């Protein structure tokens, strides 16, 4: 009882605390039991979600299982841009706290699995789950009226509207990864050691759009501030399939101690889709007329929106992960577990486009130079995740669980971008319970992802291509997850 009260008290404090923040590129994890134990499940692996954490765990199942769950994610990121160099600004809402678009505050997440023990030492299973999810939209950039006014020198015009229609969403990132996961597990040594192998047949959709400032290569007369950068947007909407494997080993070291280890290979999703490259050209009649018709500036300063539509392929790498865990039966009613994982985020190098066809180019080569897509290059770091969890069984009808995990951010300050949320180490705190109703076990869980407020100070252009690699400013976020689900055993 005291454990329950303590967990709920901590959660309530977090719920109403202004310091609670959360977020991240990778909402990962599968299964309510595992999530409510902070993901410390590699050595526990005693329900259908072993498909994901450690396929060897399927061999511990002695009943069929049909399971379903849904996690409701509420992202609450905030970002205060400070995109300046030597106090010069470039069009971002510098110093102004911005929030992401909340029109879809919850992202549903579902998984199901069916486990069928076959023969005496062999178990097969199949699951469909979504190990990664991210959906966020921002408006952190505006076209300055100084960039966007186009006044007829006849002076006959009344007050003009901003010439260039500009999208309200300037940065958006929506990725979904669905994993179809057939798995087989076998006991190698009876009641001691088992091995599992699963296939990750993954369908990924990748939708990302970003305002990208590209250096104006015209002569100084036509590229002085505020026109030293031209405003472009690259939008990629693609999907594709990829294949990976995961393998796991589970070892009953003693009556109370279990050890587990697993490896998930990297998966390369072969994306194919539409790529839109847009140039929001500045409107400045004076500069337009100052340039003769042979000068590209004559076309550039007309204040037009140019968009080219490309068909483009790309590879999206879902990183490999390996780790090990342990589970210890403290008493008949209490089990504790710990997990250590290493995620090879450095394998994810972003998105490099392979354009296969293009339409919508203009007759002006200078303009067309800005209608080429800009690769989304990422240079992330590998990250460590440490999880601990506890499961209590105070009554035969229900169980209580709690967990905590710490996860290093893979995103260095040089690669921080608003679409990836807060580039800070994350703390997950979770708790949950399940109740037995006949052959059905009902689950409920809540968790929060907490990150400290992070300020990224230095604008970076590592490859010196004139395009900023990161978004500087102050990041903070708050993510709450509410989960419900059930498992039927028969």
């Amino acid at each position, binding site marked *: 009882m005291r454990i329950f009260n303590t967990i709920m008290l901590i959660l309530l404090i977090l719920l109403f605390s202004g310091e609670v923040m959360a977020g991240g590129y990778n909402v990962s994890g599968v299964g309510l039991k595992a999530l409510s134990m902070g993901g410390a499940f590699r050595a526990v692996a005693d329900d259908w979600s072993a498909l994901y954490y450690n396929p060897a765990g399927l061999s511990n199942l002695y009943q069929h299982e049909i399971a379903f769950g849904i996690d409701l994610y509420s992202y609450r990121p905030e970002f205060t841009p400070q995109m300046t160099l030597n106090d010069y600004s470039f069009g971002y*809402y510098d110093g102004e706290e911005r929030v992401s678009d909340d029109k879809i505050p919850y992202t549903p997440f579902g998984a199901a699995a069916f486990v069928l023990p076959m023969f005496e030492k062999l178990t097969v299973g199949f699951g469909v789950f979504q190990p990664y999810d991210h959906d966020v939209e921002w408006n952190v950039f505006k076209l300055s*009226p*100084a960039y966007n006014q186009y006044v007829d020198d006849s002076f006959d015009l009344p007050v003009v509207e901003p010439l260039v229609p500009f999208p309200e969403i300037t940065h958006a990132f929506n990725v979904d990864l669905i994993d179809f996961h057939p798995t087989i597990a076998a006991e190698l040594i009876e009641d001691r050691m088992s091995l599992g192998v699963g296939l990750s047949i993954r369908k990924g959709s990748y939708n990302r759009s970003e305002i990208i400032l590209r250096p104006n290569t015209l002569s*100084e007369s036509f590229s*002085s501030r505020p026109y*030293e950068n031209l405003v472009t947007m690259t939008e990629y909407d693609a999907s594709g399939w990829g294949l990976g494997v995961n393998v796991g080993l589970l070892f009953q070291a003693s009556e109370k101690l279990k050890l587990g280890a697993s490896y998930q290979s990297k998966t390369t999703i072969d994306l194919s889709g539409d790529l839109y490259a847009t140039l929001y050209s500045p409107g400045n009649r004076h500069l337009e007329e*100052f340039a003769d018709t042979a000068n590209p500036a004559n076309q550039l300063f007309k204040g037009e929106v140019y968009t080219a539509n490309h068909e483009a392929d790309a590879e999206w790498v879902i990183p490999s992960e390996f780790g090990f865990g342990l589970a210890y039966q403290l008493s008949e009613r209490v089990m504790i577990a710990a997990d250590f994982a290493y995620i090879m985020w450095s394998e994810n190098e972003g998105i490099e486009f392979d354009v296969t066809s293009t339409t919508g180019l203009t007759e002006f080569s200078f303009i067309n130079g800005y209608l080429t897509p800009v690769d989304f290059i990422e240079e992330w770091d590998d990250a460590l995740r440490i999880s601990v969890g506890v499961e209590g069984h105070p009554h035969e009808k229900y169980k209580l669980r709690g967990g905590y995990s710490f996860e290093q951010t893979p995103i260095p300050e040089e690669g921080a971008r608003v679409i990836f949320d807060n580039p800070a180490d994350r703390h997950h705190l979770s708790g949950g319970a399940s109740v037995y109703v006949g052959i059905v076990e009902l689950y409920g869980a809540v968790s929060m992802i907490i990150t400290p407020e992070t300020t990224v100070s230095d604008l970076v252009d590592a490859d010196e291509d004139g395009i900023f690699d990161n978004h500087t400013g102050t990041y903070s976020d708050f993510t709450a997850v509410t989960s419900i689900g059930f498992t039927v055993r028969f």
Partner: protein
Amino acid sequence: MKRSKILFTVLFLVGLILIGCSERENPADFPDINERGFKNDGVFTYPRAYSAISDHAGWQFFNFTVDKNFFTKLYAPPSFTPQGRPFPILYLLHDFEGDENYYFSRMVQWIADSLIYEGEIKEFYIASINASTPYGGTWYTDNEFFGWFETMVVDQWVAFIESTLEDQLRVISERESRAIGGFGMGGYGALKLAAKYPELYSSVSASTPAGSFQQIEDLIPMMIEEQGLSIPIDPDDYQDMDTTNLFTEKPYTMLFFSLAQAFSPHPEDGEPGYADSTTFLSFYGIDLPFDYNGNIYQPVFDKWLAHDLSAVFDTYGGNFDSIAVHLEVSDTNQFLFHQQAEDIRNSMDQNGINYSFDTYSGYTGYPAFNQRFVYDRLVEILKFHSENLVEEM
């Protein structure tokens, strides 16, 4: 006990959902109207200011001496009405290669509107003029062969804006309400004209001004190289300087030719008062200040130095006693402007001229070359003049 725990849990889950469901919004970009009563819809008042004087903005301005039309443009502040209250005025002189659009293409109208909206500056007119030539600039200097540009600025232009157009706009036509400023060549012009005509201007600003022609000597090799010539220069090549694509490819040639037009014109060989010299380019009607060996040709160079700002300050430095002066300079050294500005400062100091001084930098990968930061520096320039211009007389 059991019921209370269930209630506790349900409340917690509901709380989470409520937090997640609450819609957040970013603040609006612009309030409809601010506390000073200025409407601000993100477009600001630039077209309104112009349309209010649409019959006259962009009119042609005849300079009798050179038989050529000149253009001037005017920014009118938000409270402007043709017969409304009068405003002070700032006359801005453009840089080398500029024209009457120089500041308007760098959005001085938007910057002024923004600063007025924010309450950072007073309302005042801002006027600009075209004082360009095919060689980039006139250096705001009178000469009988290429134009009376000094007279045009201090006499014809002021008279036209403040008298001829008095039915269309009301200017406080007093020196305390009149300022002059400029960038580069315009900075030179502003300092020189303010020094020579202290009865006209009470406030002057010069941003990265050129005007220490002693430094020009160091630019001679660049021009010779730009022309593809080698020392000694063949006399025929010297006479046949290439002036194609000056704006885009030959900035040093253009600089020397414009200075020669302004300070060492030489209309015809044998013309009374002009000694023939090896530096005479008959086709262009100018003398260059260096000989075939790239060495300074003193008789011509002396004409240039007579217009050096240090010479101006030596003669007229005392006139600055009643003028607010602001000098600022980029930390880069394009065209040796930085060194020129240092010379100018030294000369001002030697002549006891009081002035405020500022330097400005660019940012990594984008140094503050001459024209690049006009858009940003105008903010400081307008603030400086706003502090000194008198609204009510």
